[in-house]
């Protein structure tokens, strides 16, 4: 077997690095996809429920709890496929997000349901954009950008039907994002 030249060795190392990066990214998308589907459905139910019956605001908390439990179950199910899914990270993220939102609302309390309804999608959109930028994950970033744009468009241009807009466009964007990531 003829020895490799330094250039050939460098090409091979570049190939390895590129393939590893592509594989890791595709794996990340596959892990994220079911969570996006789940939360898309939860948002759809939450916002539509609130639009049709604004007195049932408890629906938001109840369905969010269902979403959290569902995400834990998805995490465990993925761990079952021998992966090293670290559900403690997910748990820590949820706790940190909860503490952040509690502190923020103590300082700047939202005055309307619409503000509340726009705040959480914007927060999620920011997180997805950051994950996209730092994780070099284009699809994650695009999903975050779409979600943020949808939220702002709904908030400023469709104030009367904002909740319904978020149910269909916001929930739909999450589900479409999940579908897109699954296709990798």
């Amino acid at each position, binding site marked *: 077997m003829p020895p490799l030249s330094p250039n050939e*060795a460098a090409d091979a190392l570049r190939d390895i690095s590129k*393939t590893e990066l592509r594989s890791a990214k595709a794996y990340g998308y596959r892990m994220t996809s079911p969570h996006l589907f789940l939360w898309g459905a939860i948002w759809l139910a939450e916002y539509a429920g609130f639009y049709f019956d604004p007195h049932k605001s408890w629906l938001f908390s109840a369905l969010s709890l269902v979403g959290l439990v569902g995400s834990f179950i998805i995490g465990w199910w993925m761990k079952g496929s021998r992966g090293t899914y670290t559900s403690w990270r997910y748990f820590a993220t949820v706790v940190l997000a909860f503490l952040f939102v509690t502190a923020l609302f103590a300082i700047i309390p939202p005055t309307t349901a619409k503000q509340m309804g726009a705040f959480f999608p914007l927060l999620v959109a920011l997180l997805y954009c950051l994950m996209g930028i730092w994780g070099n994950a284009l699809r994650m970033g695009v999903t975050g950008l779409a979600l943020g744009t949808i939220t702002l468009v709904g908030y400023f241009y469709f104030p009367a039907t904002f909740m319904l807009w978020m149910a269909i466009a916001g929930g739909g964007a999450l589900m479409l994002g999940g579908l897109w990531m699954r296709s990798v």
Partner: protein
Amino acid sequence: MDQPDPAIHQTVRLKIMAALKALPQGEAIEFVRLKALVGATEGNLGAHIGNLESAGYVDVEKDFVGKRPRTRIRLNKKGRRALEDYVAYLRDIIDMPNAG
């Protein structure tokens, strides 16, 4: 390592190993997904996976999801070590004093 490992020293097999190494340890990937990542044809990929399996570097699992057959491939410890050795071999070539 004086000579490159012949089981890995081939473009498609190297990409297969790299794609598998990027997964968390013990995690398997479906054949169709690996095909997309590596950019090989079905027959070509199957043959190279066979070679890597014979070398003892990957484990292949075949089962059914409903009525659909599914093939999953996983890099084992020996394979992971072999790829690390191969990468070290490549780095040695580049770092040789008269390289470049």
